[in-house]
């Protein structure tokens, strides 16, 4: 089905860019408000912000954002100025790039790539570069320690992340995210196709691996030693203030949003609703996806606010000695079963 009106490609491109530019900060805002401000407060017997905006402090984060924009742009004396200024942009950019391939409906996808998941995982690891840049350019020992920790950690957890997804790719037979969603929608559980076949059922190990590795990629507790507030006082972002810090903040929650969206697309069936197709799916798809994203984010943040953090060496040991062997075993088992059935 094509649109009745011919729309010039430039307009479509502008619209797509706008959508991506709007979705990330919005997603970051929603996650920040719902989980950081409200869920965490609830877990800790507090109310969180209640006044800004009138209803349960919904305006708080926007107000914070406005405040950050007014702040003086402080740059440390010894900083490598250009790298220092670029680092937050690189971090946020990687988040934006991930979003380009996540489908929210049969036709609602910014860029439909044949190697979508490959691309998404590749650009998501770009943020390491930004973090390393921030840590190095800040001319601060705490920031440097944090940046190096982040680099080591993100490289170590890139592997389980990718290997955890390989099972899904084998099962779906495609690297295209849209194709993976369709494979889940059209799948059957022992001949019953009522809810399709979300890959979480067969790839529960892969899902767990993906969530653990995503937690590490997001540098959230229990893998938050790059920011480690009690040791490194915020690690690589310790010297950042004002809108540059805002970029890191958006990057942090935007990436959480992006990884939750990836996880829902890969394992929970994405936008698909059984029995709904065409334009209706385009309308309902984003809503369904958002619900799943919130559910996955809830898991991510629940862990974040509950657990203590591991030590750097323990984290590496966990990645190389536990997660990667499990992931490899998962791939072998998936491959064998795929051939067998």
């Amino acid at each position, binding site marked *: 089905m094509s649109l009745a009106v011919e729309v010039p490609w430039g307009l479509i491109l502008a619209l797509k860019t706008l959508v991506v530019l709007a979705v990330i900060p919005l997603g970051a805002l929603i996650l920040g408000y719902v989980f950081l401000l409200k869920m965490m407060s609830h877990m800790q*017997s507090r109310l969180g912000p209640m006044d800004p905006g009138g209803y349960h402090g919904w305006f708080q984060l926007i107000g914070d954002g406005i405040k950050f924009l007014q702040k003086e742009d402080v740059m440390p004396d010894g900083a490598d100025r250009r790298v220092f200024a670029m680092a937050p942009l690189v971090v946020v950019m990687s988040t934006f790039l991930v979003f380009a391939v996540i489908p929210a409906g049969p036709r609602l996808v910014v860029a439909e790539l044949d190697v979508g998941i490959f691309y998404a995982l590749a650009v998501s690891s770009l943020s390491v570069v930004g973090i390393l840049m921030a840590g190095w350019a800040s001319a601060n020992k*705490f920031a440097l320690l944090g940046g190096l920790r982040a680099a080591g950690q993100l490289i170590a957890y890139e592997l389980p992340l990718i290997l955890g997804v390989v099972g899904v790719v084998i099962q779906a037979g495609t690297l295209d995210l849209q194709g993976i969603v369709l494979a889940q929608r059209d799948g059957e559980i022992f001949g019953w196709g009522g809810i399709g076949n979300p890959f979480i059922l067969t790839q529960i190990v892969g899902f767990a691996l993906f969530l653990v590795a995503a937690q590490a990629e997001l540098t959230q507790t229990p893998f*938050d030693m790059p920011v*480690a507030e009690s040791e490194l006082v915020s690690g690589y972002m310790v010297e950042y203030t004002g809108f540059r810090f805002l970029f890191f903040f958006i990057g942090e929650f935007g990436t959480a949003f992006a990884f939750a969206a990836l996880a829902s697309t890969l394992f929970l069936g994405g936008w698909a609703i059984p029995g709904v197709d065409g334009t209706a799916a385009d309308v309902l798809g984003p809503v369904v996806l958002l619900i799943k994203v919130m559910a996955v984010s809830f898991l991510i943040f629940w862990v974040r*606010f509950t657990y*203590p953090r591991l030590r750097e*060496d323990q984290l590496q040991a966990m990645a190389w000695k536990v997660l990667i062997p499990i992931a490899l075993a998962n791939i072998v088992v998936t491959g064998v079963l795929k051939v067998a059935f």
Partner: protein
Amino acid sequence: MTATTPGFELDPRALRHLADAQVNVELDTGDMVLNIGPQHPATHGTLRLVVRLDGERVVAADPVIGYMHRGYEKLTEFRTYPQVTTLINRIDWLSSFANEVPFIWAAELLMDIEAPPRATWIRTILTELSRIATIYLFLGEMGLQVGALTPAFWAFRDRELVLNLIEAATGGRFHPNFNRIGGLKDDLPWGWIAECRRAMRRILDGCDDFEDVLVGNEIFEARTRGVGIIPAELGAAYGVSGANLRASGVDWDLRRDGRPYLAYPELDFKVWTHPDGDSFARYWVRLQETREAARMVLQLLDGLPGGPIMAKVPRIIKVPEGECWVETENPLGQMGYYVVSKGATGPFRVKIRSASFSNVSILPWLLRGVYVPDVVTILASLYFILGDIDR
């Protein structure tokens, strides 16, 4: 010093090495010198640690103290005895009431006055309450330092109940200034005892929560077990006291083993020890101590005697000539006062032996060879209050 922990012996060469104290750390090159503090969240106060790092590993650590030195020992010489409590309240500001007790006790010993039983029992209750208020914060804070946000807020929430009780009884949340030589300023307010019972039950529940969320957590265990082991003899040689020493297996508690004071001889309580001596043991011992303190308060409330709360004391307090050393088991460890009186209205000389000062003196030894995250774990598990170090 390359001595391994279990077979450690204090040989003079090792001590000389310690005495070098790496003052010239800044002149070295090659390793990275990281300055932790004085404004660093892990030092909760103004402790400064000059740490020489090889990657993430600590080669040498050197605590620099004195940023908060307020000269209380000297100031006491210019105050009258009742005024001194205002100062010593602020030594370990989390357990101010427990600070007052030994000084007042020393003055009473010198004057040969004994507080009436009801005053003694209320003092014991308030001391134990301030013990809970202090250690309870640690139970959450330790989680925060190893990365778990939530327990810290739980700690503040439940500690509020205890602070409210202290406020209701004394009028001050942090600095009660409630002790008088020969007794107390006031009796307990109406309804306080029932409220206290309720709060203690809540505290006991809260301890269970901490046990669930931290003690049983694999990551917490991984972060604390085997980290910062203090061998018993070495700890004792450094003057480490309180729960830090009991966690190394030394069964020593001044409430039971020292010169009898307050109502402790009449109480039935258990002194908890742990054989391991690591950060986990310190957490565990403090958790048990909080429970024990809550049970002790319940016990004290049951047996609270009646009667006056002030002994007969002259209007202007003059302490006869003499000297006196007292020591008590404060939340952070052994707290001692050496009071010298020349018969005036104020002390001639007061020497304060505070627990944290001795407890952090073991840091250079303890921090050698650990990772940066462990520095924070060890600092948190030793649990010092800066005011208690610097006075």
